[in-house]
């Protein structure tokens, strides 16, 4: 198989693009996709600080790598979930990455903020582990960005993540989730920073290949709580569709973003308040994070 651009032996075949690339040309293809995502959605500029949420996995570290190379002003944020060896190893990967590139890394521990690490949150609340974890991550990413006066948080969500989330929302017709699914969410309140996903045009295979080619030392092992997660089941279904019909995931996600999403956007925005406890944004009186934290502290003490 030959590289579409230069004719050299290919390292990676991208069936959805009916193309294959050698390593240098794939790296350039990857960077061009990130540039296009940032440009199209005006995600951020080179004058702004960008808080890059990193987990130690391939996607977030690949994103951070690209943004540094492109000359963006970045600060990493690692949220220590306290998930046994998985968190120890993933934190070490992030620290090593940041030190090698001399870029700042903020570390925030869920156990200190919520009152217990994710495994304890799961056992005392009886919620699915990904539920309390995702809630804590969204809350802490926003709060840390505000505390450091950083206007935008970038996450490493890729095309497969976004297609699987859309699939799950459609399967349950979650009408409130559909308008919120976007590569770039604007700030709709002074205490909400922008959230962007510069890798949304790139598949999981492509982010993994980029991380490998760039020799990024990422954690390959899966989060121990991800086994049996619904998002994994949806990804497996979509991957089988993709194998039978290359481009299926791309068409599903981009068709939604380009043609269907506007129809789901609510005519009237949701009223946003400030949490009576912590001051962060909520649609109620007390935010979900404070309720979770109260519940955990009550049960743990």
């Amino acid at each position: 198989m030959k590289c579409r651009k230069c004719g050299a032996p290919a390292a990676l075949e991208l069936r959805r693009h009916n193309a294959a690339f050698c390593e240098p040309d794939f790296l350039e293809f990857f960077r061009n996709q990130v540039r296009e995502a940032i440009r199209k959605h005006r995600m951020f500029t080179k004058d702004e600080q960008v808080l890059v949420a990193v987990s130690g996995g391939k996607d977030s570290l690949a994103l951070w790598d690209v943004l540094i190379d492109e000359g963006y002003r970045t600060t990493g944020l690692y949220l220590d979930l306290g998930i046994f060896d998985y968190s120890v190893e993933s934190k070490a990967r992030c620290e090593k990455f940041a030190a090698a590139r001399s870029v700042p890394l903020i570390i925030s521990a869920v156990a200190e903020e919520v009152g217990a690490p994710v495994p304890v949150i799961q056992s005392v609340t009886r919620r699915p582990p990904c539920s309390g974890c995702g809630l804590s991550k969204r809350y802490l990413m926003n709060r840390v960005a505000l505390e450091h006066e950083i206007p935008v948080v970038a996450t490493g969500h890729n095309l497969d993540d976004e297609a699987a989330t859309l699939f799950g929302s459609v399967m349950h017709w979650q009408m409130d989730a559909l308008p919120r699914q976007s590569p770039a969410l604007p700030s709709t309140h002074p205490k909400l920073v922008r959230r962007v996903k510069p890798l949304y045009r790139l598949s999981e295979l492509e982010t993994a290949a980029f991380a490998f080619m760039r020799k990024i030392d990422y954690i390959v092992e899966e989060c121990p709580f991800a086994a049996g997660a619904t998002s994994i089941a949806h990804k497996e279904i979509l991957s089988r569709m993709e194998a039978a019909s290359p481009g299926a995931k791309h068409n599903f996600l981009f068709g939604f973003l380009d043609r269907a999403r506007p129809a789901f956007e609510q005519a009237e925005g949701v009223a946003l308040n400030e949490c009576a406890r912590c001051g962060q944004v909520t649609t109620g009186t007390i935010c979900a994070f404070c309720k979770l934290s109260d519940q955990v502290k009550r049960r743990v003490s």
Partner: protein
Amino acid sequence: MAGNRRVKEILRELAIVPETVLVICGDALVTADHIVRDDETIELRPVMSGGAGSMP
């Protein structure tokens, strides 16, 4: 597993969807038409992640 076969044949035998793994031979990625010799070893590295714990 015996070699001298193309990567795509090996993946088919293992019932692995090609786009769910990186195929690594030595220190490089190889495509589905690469013939794996008897004396070569390939690594099939899963690319799928999920759940909130491993959320990007």
